[in-house]
Structures are given as C-alpha cells and as structure tokens.
C-alpha cells in the first residue's frame, strides 16, 4: 500500500478491539477510517494472543497493520548502553508516581532503545533487584516472595513489551484508550517526536478496576498493585498526550481527577449514522417487545436482563425479550445465560437471536433495554432514539445525560426490579412515552450525527499535525 506524501498518516493504537473484536469502540474506529478517506491510517494493535481473526473489512485507506501480542516476549536485538542511567530513571519514575502528576517517560525512553526489552533485567541488575525486593519489603513483607515476584513480572512484562516494541511510521499517533495502547502512544510520541492524542470511550483504568475486583484469582495486595499500575498508565498518558478527548463530561471530570491537564481535554460525543437509522419504518408487532442490543458478555450483564424478563413476564405475559448480539465472545457466559433462562422457565418469552441487522428489530421493539454494568456513551441508545424506540437503562457512563436523568427510565446496575418497573412504566404510559420518544429523536438528529463527529476528528488531525 503506497503512501501519498501529502496525506496525513494517522496511527491508530488499539488494544483488544478493532479489527479483531466487534463492539462499540471497534465500530467507531471502522467508521472513523471510512469517513476520513482523505487520510491514511496505520493500525497498531495490541492483542492478547496471536493470529486472531480479523472481523472487519479493512478500509482501503489503511496503509499498514502491526500487531503486538502483549503476552509474547519479544527478542531483544538492541543493547542498553547505560543500564545504571536507565535504572536511575526507573527509580525516579516510581518516585514520581507518588509525588506528582508530571510523570515524564522521556528520559527513560532515551536510555531504552527500540528493540530492547527489560523482561529479566530487574533480576539481573542489582539496582532492579534492589527496587523489587525493597518494594516487597515495604508493601508486602508477609506474603511469599515468589507470588509477589510473579505478580510483578506478569504486570511489568506487558509494559516492557510495549516500551521496546517497534513503532509504525506516522504523522499523528492516536490511542483509543489509555492502558497499553496509551503507553504505546506515549512511546511513539517520544521516539518519533510526533503528536500524540488520546480518545477515551470508557475509562480504561476504571474498567480494569472493575474486572480486577471481580476476578477471584487476583486477591490481596496483587489487586492493589494491578489497580495502581492501570491508574499510573492512565496518568502517564494524560501527561504526555497533546489532546485528550472523551465522549462525555462525566468522564472528562474523572480524567481531571487523575491528573489530566484541563487545557488538553475536550468532549466529542459519539454519533450515529442518522441517514441509515432514519430509514427505519415502524411496523409494530402484536405483543410487547423488549430488546437488548449488545454482545453476550458479563460487562453487558445479560443475566440482569434475564431476571428483568422474569419479573416483567409475571405481570405482562405477552412480553417478548430479545438479546440481539454476537454470542461467541464468551461461550461459558452465554451457556450460563441460557441455563438461567431455562431455570427461570421463560424460554417462551426469551430469545437469543445472535448478531442481526438491528434496524429490523428497532422497527418493532417497544423498549430498548441496557443492563450494562459499565458503559461509556452507548450508541445503541442513540440508535434507538433515532428509530423512535424508548429506552430503559442502568445508570452507567453517559446514560444519565442521554436520558436526561429521568428516573422513570433509569435503574442502578444489577437492579432487575427497578428495570422491570421502567419497562412496566413504558407499557402502561404509551402516550407520555411517545412524546419523549419524539423529543429524543430530534435531539439525536441534531447533536449526534456521526458525519459531523468524524469531520471534527479530520480537522483535529490536521490541526494537531500543523501545530507539531
């Protein structure tokens, strides 16, 4: 793929997402690339395993794709000239984490050439080993050192991979999250001396924190260690990013709390294809139909959707529930969900329909439900609004703003009773709801047009390149 010299080259840095995994962020990236055909894109992806199947059709303006398997150890082919200086920087970095938000990686990267990886240097180097053992003595002296070592190593090896990994050539580096993708962006900025911008759909460190707290195999001090690492990765990204974009105000405030410089932050909400969804014609079906559009994965909390279905069907027997989305991402969870449907004896009212053309469902759904325990700015709500479908949702991410803090349609995460009440309200108050539906339709068409969003990104890329 040839690169036209006058075109700006954007390197999108993605972790566990596009083009291997479907989902809101991945779809957003695909549309970003498609909607900016004048720009060239390089994909720098960070994957948990190698040879993953690409599930999106890669657009023609993507000129390269480099995938780094985060769990795979890469072979060092460059020598570190001054390990003493490097370790001095590492010590300083760890001290900075405790004292300041200005966590500068510039010197560290200066002493760590591309192609050199620090996987075992902490064991081999007396300074590194001293740091490790001192940290263990300070924070976790009562735990077996072997456990501490492996926890430390598994956390740090992934960072070492990113710090030494080769970087694709580009004019602007754009990470679509903090974490390892963000770290890769920071490294790229320092090594290539190019601008680095960050778009956070959700808050990476918060999402990881939830996962860590839920994971039974991570306990005690290891939990704190991982949470600290993800927080610090975000802080590093915020300090180095030239521009930090988030989807809604709440998340921006959270970024500021973690040290993001206010002048670098801005909100650009997500948009949808208004033209595409405006074509949906309502064709109501007999009965009462409630749909959830999303992957069948724990973070979407499909189980709460099933419990809600059980509660609703006791008072509205004709209610039909549809889980609309791919079922193959977490098969054990999907199996659990199917079992739950069976054990609650609602098989007749509940359907897993798999990945579908959502417009077909929006044409007859009476309610779109969102039971996620964590979301950023869920596009499905915008899609439903655009198609005239009322929404009942958990209070996550930007949902509160989108639903105007209207408690009639909101419930706390995992609160199936409240969600069922929301559904019943919609069922019992069709006139009031239809007024709201119309209002939301206008709001989406006016403020959430995807084309405008991507145009704005195009302008930002040009501006950030010019200011380089």
């Amino acid at each position: 793929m040839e690169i036209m010299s006058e075109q700006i080259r954007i390197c999108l840095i993605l972790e566990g997402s596009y083009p291997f995994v479907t989902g809101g962020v991945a779809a957003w990236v695909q549309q970003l690339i498609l909607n900016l055909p004048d720009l060239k894109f390089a994909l720098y992806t960070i994957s948990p395993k190698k040879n993953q199947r690409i599930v999106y059709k890669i657009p023609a303006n993507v000129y390269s794709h480099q995938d780094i398997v985060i769990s795979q150890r890469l072979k060092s082919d460059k020598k570190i000239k001054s390990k003493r200086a490097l370790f001095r920087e590492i010590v300083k970095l760890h001290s900075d984490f405790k004292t300041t938000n200005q966590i500068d990686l510039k010197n560290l990267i200066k002493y760590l050439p591309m192609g050199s990886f620090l996987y075992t240097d902490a064991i081999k180097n007396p300074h590194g080993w001293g740091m490790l053992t001192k940290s263990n003595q300070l924070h976790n002296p009562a735990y077996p050192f072997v456990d501490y070592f492996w926890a430390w190593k598994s956390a740090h090896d992934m960072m070492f991979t990113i710090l030494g990994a080769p970087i694709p050539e580009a004019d602007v580096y754009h990470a679509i999250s903090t974490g390892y993708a963000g770290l890769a962006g920071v490294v790229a900025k320092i090594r290539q001396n190019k601008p680095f911008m960050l778009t956070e759909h959700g808050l990476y460190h918060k999402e990881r924190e939830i996962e860590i707290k839920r994971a039974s195999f991570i306990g005690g001090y290891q939990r704190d260690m991982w949470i600290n690492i993800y927080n610090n990765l975000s802080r590093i990204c915020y300090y180095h990013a030239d521009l930090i974009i988030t989807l809604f105000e709440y998340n921006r405030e959270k970024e500021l709390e973690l040290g993001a410089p206010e002048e670098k932050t801005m909100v650009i909400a997500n948009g949808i294809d208004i033209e595409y969804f405006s074509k949906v014609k309502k064709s109501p079906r007999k009965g009462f139909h409630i749909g959830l559009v999303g992957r069948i994965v724990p973070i979407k909390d499909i189980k709460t959707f099933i419990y809600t279905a059980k509660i609703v069907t006791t008072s509205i027997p004709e209610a039909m529930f549809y889980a609309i989305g791919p079922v193959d991402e977490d098969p054990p969870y999907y199996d659990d969900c199917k079992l739950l449907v069976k054990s609650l004896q609602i098989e007749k009212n509940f359907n897993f329909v798999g990945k579908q053309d959502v417009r077909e469902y929006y044409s007859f759904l009476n309610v779109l439900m969102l039971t996620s325990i964590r979301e950023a700015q869920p596009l499905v709500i915008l899609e439903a609004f655009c198609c005239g479908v009322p929404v009942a949702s958990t209070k996550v991410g930007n949902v509160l703003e989108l639903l105007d803090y209207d408690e009639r349609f909101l419930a706390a995460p995992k609160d199936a009773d409240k969600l069922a009440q929301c559904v019943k309200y919609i069922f019992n108050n069709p006139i009031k709801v239809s007024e709201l539906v119309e209002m939301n339709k206008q709001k989406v068409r006016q403020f959430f047009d995807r084309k405008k969003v991507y145009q704005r990104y195009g302008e930002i890329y040009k501006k950030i390149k010019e200011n380089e």
Partner: protein
Amino acid sequence: MAGIGFVLRRVIKQGGLLSVVKVALAGTIIVAGPWLLSILGIFFITKYSYYLIGQTVAIFMAVVIYSYAFSLFLFGGIHYIFTRLVADYMYEKKKKKAGEALLLFSVIIAVLSTSLSVVVLLLLDLQKIIFPTLFKISGIIFFVSINLIWLLMIFISLLKKYFKIFIVYCAGMALAFGSITLLAKSLSVSGVMLGFAGGHFLIVVCLYILAFKEYRPGGFTVKEHLPYFVRFKFLLFTGILYYWGMWIDKIVFWFTKGSPIAESFFKVFDVYDIPVYIANLTIIPGLIYFMIINETNFYRHLTEFLTKFNKGIYQKLQKLKYKLIASLKKGLREQCVFQGIFTLTLILIAPMLVMADTEKLLVGGITNITVFRITLGATFFHLIFLTIIIFLFYLQRFRLAFFSTFCFFIINLCGSLLIALWGNENILGVSYLAAGLISCLLGGVFLFSSAGKIDNAVFLIASGEKIDNL
C-alpha cells in the same frame, strides 16, 4: 550425583569399625577405582614380573599411562555430559532412559576409542616384542575398557550396590594379576598386556551386567540424548578443559623433556610422572570425604533452599540463602583442613618416602623431593578446585565453571611450556600448582558470587532465560 554419598553416609551412621571399613573401601573404589588398579598393576609388574619381561616393561607402562591420560584428555568432556544426563533421568525417575543413555554413550565411546587405538597401535612397529599383534590387540582392549570403566564409574554411583562393585573390582584385579603371572613367562610383555586388559575387560562386563540388570534400556535412542551436548555446551567444554588442564603439563614434559620408549613414539618422563601419579593417590581420602560429607551436606542445604523457595517470605529466603552460603564456606574449609592434613603430612615426610627407595616399588621411583612436594601441593589445590567446580555445577553455573577450567588449563599449559623451555627440574609441577591455586581463587569468587545470587538465578531460569546471563 550425591546419591551414593547419602547411601554411604547411612552406612557410616550404623557405627562400628566394620562400617568405616566398608565405606572406606566402597568410597575408594568409586572415587579412584581405575587409578588404584593401574597403580597396583604397575607395582605388581615391577615387583613380580620385571625379571620375566625385562626392558619391555617400558612399552607396557607407556601404553597404560597414555591410555589413562588420553582416555580423559579426549573423552573427559563426554563424561560430564553423561553425568548430567543420567542425573536428570534419575531425578525424573526415568530408569529406562538412564539405561538407554548408558548404552548410547557406551557405543559412542567404544567406537571412538576403538578407532583411535587401532590407528595409534597400527603406527607402532614392535619388532623386539614377542607376539606384537597380541600386544596391540590387548592394548586396544585395554584402552577401550578404560574408557568404558570411566563411563561406568559415573553410572555405578547410582547402583548403591557398593559391596558388589567392590567384589567386581577384586575379581578384575585377581584375573589381571593371575593371568599376568601365568602369561608373562610364555608370552612376555604381550602376556602381561593381555592379562591386564583381560582384568579390566572383566570389570567392564560385570559392571554392565550390574548396571543393565537394574537399569534395563527401553531401546537404543539417539535423538533424545544428543541435544544435551548443545544444551550443556559449557559443561562439555568444562569437562574437556578440566582434563586438558590436568594432563597438559605431563604431555608437555613428555614431548619436551621425556625419554623415548623404544619402538614407539611414546615418551615418558619418570622424574615428573611418578611423583604426580603418587600425589594423585593422596587425594583419595579427600575425594571420599567430599563424596560422603561435603557434597551431601551442600546438597541437603540446596534442596532445603529450593523446596522452601515457593513458600517463603523474602526474609526467610535470605536466611536460607545465607545458610547455603555458610554450608559452602564450611564445606570448603573442612575440605581444605581434611586434605590439608594429609598433604602437609606427606610434604613433611617426603624425604622418608624417597629414602624408602621407591625405585624398588615403582619403575624409576621418586627421585626429586622438591618436585614431589610441589605436586603434593598441586594435587591439594586440584582437589579444592574440583570441589568448587562441582558446587558450581550444582548451582547450574556451567559458564563460570568453564572460565575457571579454562584458567586452569591455560596457566598449566603456559607454565609448563615456560618450565620446559627455561626452567630446571626442581620447579617441575609449579605450573600445575599455580594453575590449581589461581583457579581455586577464581572459582571461589565465582562460586560465592553465584551462591549470593541463587535467588536471582532461580527466577531467571523460571523466566525462561539462561542463567549464564546473570
């Protein structure tokens, strides 16, 4: 392999004089069986058969000494790889694999040593010897047997049947000396060579029976075992350089100062060969002490460190590490004291040994007290150096052991060349002494630095990296 040491330690704990005698005999056979055989053989022939074979005894002596020297000089590295391979199989309780390894290495050694000895002996033009072909064939059998005995010596430490091994050695010696007595009169030196080779061959056959009875090979496999040569290349080179270092001064002196043996290209240098040979015997008690006490103690501490490693808090690991280092220090100190007493006593009574007229016991005898004293000192450091590199092996620091043995070899080579060119006879062995002393110091530094980093080493290996990078 500390296995036999533990067995003998249990025996000694039974108490009583008989236990001590048992352990002393078994230990002697295991650490120095072939050496003793050769010394006793030479002693026996010098004392009882000399009048029958006359001056031709020199060619017999040369074949015996060169066989010993070159069996180790050429194949010593293979012995180290074999030891490692068998130790791994024993740790994994793969008895069949251990038997297969013995079979494969025996075939390799037998093929190589036969080919080499055929070539060498073909070059000899033995006109003054009766039945020269018989002498040559016996020489080949002897060289191959010696090579196989070295291999079996490594393996028999697994067998734990030290009494049977002792009987085998006695039977071999009885056959050798019996047939020498019978054959020397009719076949002269060829008969002596045949008898001596026959005794060794009997030992080889019996030890194979003992070994394969308990460790029957599952088949003949090559692929599984040979990668060890690549994986443990530093161990291989350590073995090679150790034996090169041990023999290089003798070889240098043979070919620069030695006297030629009639009808052969062999040369010997009695002034140095005999003191070194006798001095080497003086480290037998030290080797037994190492095998039974020192090695087993260290192994126990190392095992304790490794087994508690997974559960211990950092401070506990440090304590275990310092305990291990302390056991190393204690082991080396005790080894020095134990062997030092023997060496010092012999240095002091050296004039008495010379006055005892060793010429009547051994061809040439000890003629220079200074050289004898120097070689006694050299073998002392040699033993300590051997102890250090074995400990380095336990710590998996093969590269450091390699550097130490390289130092041992190069100092002995350069020193002996300097002595051969410019030195006088009173300083023969100084290069051997200096090589031993300096290598001990270097090896000691490597050993204690490695022991100090044993926790790092464990993590490094577990992280999939080579310990040599530490």
